[in-house]
């Protein structure tokens, strides 16, 4: 019998609801909370945003999937964590209510696992090394013995966070996303500015780069004020975007290559919001070409946080559990800290 799963995602500034039936995406609408340039998204305002759109979004998801009633859904899935507390709770509350109204099982999904499982579904990659890069996470992951193990990760801020905060410094627009706007400006960058390059074994660090680039931006502003200073010392925003991307992504590709060599795999899967950056995909492709490996990249529909990925991971978990009971209500809480390697992967037997 076909299993229809619905997934609710709202761990950051996007809220998404997706419906999946045995690996086929029926609908996957999403709404993004966009803040003015120079500002990030605050947890309480993000939660209010999610609250205000979640029911309309649900209606849209059902309509697009051509599903008449929630009674036709077999399992309700939601993001248990990691993420921002307030938005997570808003979504979890709605899901718990609906599932009890229709007397259906609930599955709480680890957000990172959602990205990985969606990536595997879309690309068909069997056992790839996964680079998970987003606003809140930067991890290099490989599967082994029923766990997605973290090989390397950032020791301070996530790569997407570094990009977002850089965009705020330059007052770039947050629409559709800061990263997208940086990418467009970077295409026009000419000069490469040396920035710190911090790879520590399998780990990376980004906060020093952000501080460094801050001092350059401040210096830039002063140089423009004192017009008598020679223009050589001032860089364009395009150059800054270009250099930042080149440096950050080179570090990411390097640790991915390290993991590939160590695990002996020949497939890379890039997931997470930063994963839709075409320059990152290109660089990863160049690295893979030299090692006779392949890159599986996915487009913004599934790279960026979405509901379908939660439905897919939840479906796998539900399907692997023969009791078909889902989680008890006590287990459907949220957690801001929920590591990728904390989840026992019951649905893979390799």
């Amino acid at each position: 019998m076909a299993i229809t799963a619905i997934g609710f995602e709202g761990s950051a500034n996007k809220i998404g609801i997706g419906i999946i039936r045995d690996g086929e995406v029926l609908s996957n609408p999403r709404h993004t909370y966009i803040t003015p340039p120079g500002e990030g998204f605050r947890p309480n305002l993000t939660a209010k945003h999610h609250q205000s759109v979640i029911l309309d979004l649900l209606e849209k998801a059902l309509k697009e999937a051509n599903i008449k009633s929630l009674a036709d859904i077999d399992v309700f899935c939601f993001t248990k964590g990691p993420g921002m507390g307030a938005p997570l709770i808003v979504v979890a509350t709605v899901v718990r209510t609906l599932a009890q109204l229709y007397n259906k099982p609930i599955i709480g999904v680890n957000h990172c696992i959602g990205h990985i499982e969606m990536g595997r579904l879309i690309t068909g990659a069997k056992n790839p090394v996964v680079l998970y890069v987003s606003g809140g996470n930067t991890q290099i992951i490989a599967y082994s013995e029923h766990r997605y193990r973290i090989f390397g990760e950032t020791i301070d801020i996530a790569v997407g966070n570094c990009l977002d905060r850089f965009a705020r410094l330059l007052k770039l627009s947050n629409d559709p996303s800061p990263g997208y706007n940086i990418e467009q400006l970077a295409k026009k960058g000419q000069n490469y500015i040396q920035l710190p390059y911090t790879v520590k074994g399998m780990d990376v660090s980004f906060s020093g780069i952000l501080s460094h680039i801050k001092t350059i931006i401040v210096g830039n502003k002063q140089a423009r004020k004192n017009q008598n200073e020679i223009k050589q010392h001032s860089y364009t925003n395009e150059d800054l975007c270009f250099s930042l991307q080149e440096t950050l992504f080179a570090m990411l590709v390097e640790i991915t290559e390290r993991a590939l060599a160590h695990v002996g795999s020949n497939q890379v899967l890039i997931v997470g919001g930063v994963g839709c950056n075409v320059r990152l995909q290109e660089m990863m492709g160049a690295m893979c070409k030299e090692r006779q490996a392949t890159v599986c990249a996915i487009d913004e529909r599934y790279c960026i946080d979405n509901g379908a990925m939660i439905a897919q991971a939840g479906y796998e978990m539900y399907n692997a559990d023969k009791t078909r009971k889902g989680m008890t209500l006590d287990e459907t809480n949220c957690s801001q800290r929920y590591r990728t390697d904390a989840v026992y992967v019951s649905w893979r037997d390799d």
Partner: protein
Amino acid sequence: MESAPPVYSNIELICQGAEARIFRCLYFGRRAILKERFVKTYRHPDLDSAVTLQRLKGEVRLLTRAKQLGIHTPSIYHIDWSKRTIIMEDLYDSRTVKSIIDTLIQENNTMKLDELAQQIGSTIGRLHQAQIVHGDLTTSNMLLSENNQLYLIDFGLSAHVPNKTQMLEALAVDLYVLERAIICTHQKAKHFFSNILMAYKNSISDDKQRTLTMNKYEEVRARGRKRSMVG
């Protein structure tokens, strides 16, 4: 006219690591390893040459320093800057510790495993005592020769850190990298890392130094855990 042996001959690719291509060759008729840090096409050329030359220089310098401490490392024969290449001793009768662990686990040889952990721990301890961090401690970067001598290879990410506070941080990260490499590659080798750590602690003679390093190490471990707060 009798000709001298060619500089390089019988060049044969043995593997492509993350950082470099490794070749076996004859260097003036002698068995040697040729490590070429090939151009990374994904990196901006300026960034690539800066990173590569820095690592090449570091590797040569620290390989030599480690040797001075009595740690077994391959001897360096020649450096070719323009080709970004180091030519060094070929440890042809050795195997990687990674494959040895796998064999020992299959044979269920816990005694030999404990011995190996002991050897690894004390070697790293000796390196760290001299304020040197390896930077990429994995079981693929350790070789065991036929007569049971542990060799450390690939010093491309290593550094000499004389500054006291930076040093503690660097040592702790070095240990943490090894711990995770072992967890990821050798799930079945239970207690292997804790045995390494035990031997490592015993190799530090200064009590205060030992406590400080271990505290820092715990701090670094916790740091990894805390990540995943937001997503």
